C-alpha cells in the first residue's frame, strides 16, 4: 500500500464531507485544506514553475467547486477527481502557452523501468530510455508519469485519465512495449 491508497473507512468519511460540501460550498474548505499540498506538488512536478503552479491549482479548486454537484463516487479517493481536473488545467496551460512540458522523475524510477523492460541498468541505457521517453505523446507520457514516476494504482490512473482500470493497464503495457522496442533498437540488439 502506498501514499495514494486509502482504507474503506477513510473513503466513507471523505465521501460524507464531499456530500456536505455539495449543499454547503463553505465546507469545501476541509477538502481544500486536505488536498492543497498534494495537488500543488502534482502540478509543480509538471510545470516546474511555482507561480504557474499556484494559478493552475487555484483554477483547479475553483472548477472542482463549480463541478462538485456532478461528482459521483467511484471507489477511489476524492483526490483522483481533483488530479483529473488539475491534469486538464495543465494540458490547457501548455496548449495556450506552447511551453515545453516538464517531466519530473527520480533516477530510481528510470532504473525500475529499465528492469521491467529486461535491460541492464547503466548510464547508457538510462540515456537511451530518456531519449525514448522524449518521443512519447503527451497522453502516453501522462500514463508513464502516473504509473512509474508517481506509483499510482491503475484504478486511480483510470479515474484521473477518464478510462477504466483495465484500459489503463492495457495502455500502460502497450507504451512499455513501445519503449522496449525503442530501447532494443537504440541498443543495436
Amino acid at each position, binding site marked *: 500500500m502506498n501514499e495514494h491508497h486509502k482504507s474503506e473507512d477513510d473513503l466513507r468519511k471523505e465521501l460524507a464531507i464531499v456530500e456536505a460540501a455539495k449543499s454547503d*460550498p*463553505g465546507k*469545501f*474548505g476541509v477538502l*481544500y*485544506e486536505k488536498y*492543497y*499540498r498534494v495537488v*500543488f*506538488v502534482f502540478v*509543480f*512536478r509538471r510545470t*516546474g514553475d*511555482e507561480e504557474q*503552479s*499556484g494559478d493552475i*491549482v*487555484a483554477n483547479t*479548486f*475553483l472548477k472542482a*467547486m*463549480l463541478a462538485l454537484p456532478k461528482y459521483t463516487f467511484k471507489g477511489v479517493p476524492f483526490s483522483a477527481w481533483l488530479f483529473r481536473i488539475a491534469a486538464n488545467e495543465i494540458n490547457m496551460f501548455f496548449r495556450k502557452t506552447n511551453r*515545453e*512540458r*516538464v*517531466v*519530473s*522523475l*527520480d*533516477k530510481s524510477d*528510470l532504473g525500475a523501468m529499465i528492469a521491467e523492460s529486461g535491460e541492464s541498468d547503466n548510464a547508457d541505457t538510462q540515456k537511451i530510455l*530518456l*531519449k525514448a*521517453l*522524449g*518521443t*512519447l505523446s*503527451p497522453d502516453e*507520457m501522462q500514463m508513464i508519469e502516473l504509473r512509474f514516476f508517481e506509483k499510482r494504482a491503475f484504478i486511480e490512473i483510470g479515474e484521473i485519465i477518464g478510462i477504466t482500470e483495465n484500459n489503463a493497464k492495457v495502455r500502460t503495457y502497450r507504451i512499455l512495449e513501445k519503449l522496449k522496442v525503442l530501447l532494443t533498437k537504440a541498443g543495436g540488439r
Partner: protein
Amino acid sequence: MSNYKFNIDPKEPREDQIERHKDFGKVMQNYQRMTNPLYKTPLYRYRKLFLIVFLVLFVAWLVAEFGENENEKKNSPVDSAQQLKKDSVKPIKDSNFNKQNPQLKSGK
C-alpha cells in the same frame, strides 16, 4: 528531439512556497462571483455600487423634474395667449394709413 524537459531528482516545493499560494477565501470569492452573478446579488451588498447607482438615479430624477417644470412654464396656455396678444395687436403708427382707409376712421 525530445518533446519534454526532464527534471531528474527534482526538489519538492518547500512548505512556505506552497502556503504562499494557499487562499481558500479567494477561491470562495471567485466561486460566489461565478455562481451569483451581479444581477442576482442584492445591490446593498456592494456599498460603493449602491451609492453610485443611487446618485445616478437621484440626478436623473432631478433633471427630469426640473426639465418638466421648465417645459410647463414654456407651454402654459396663459403665457402663450399673452404672448400672442403682444405679437398680434401692435399700434399702427403710420399717418397715411387712415387716409388710405377712410371707412376705418369713420367707424363704418
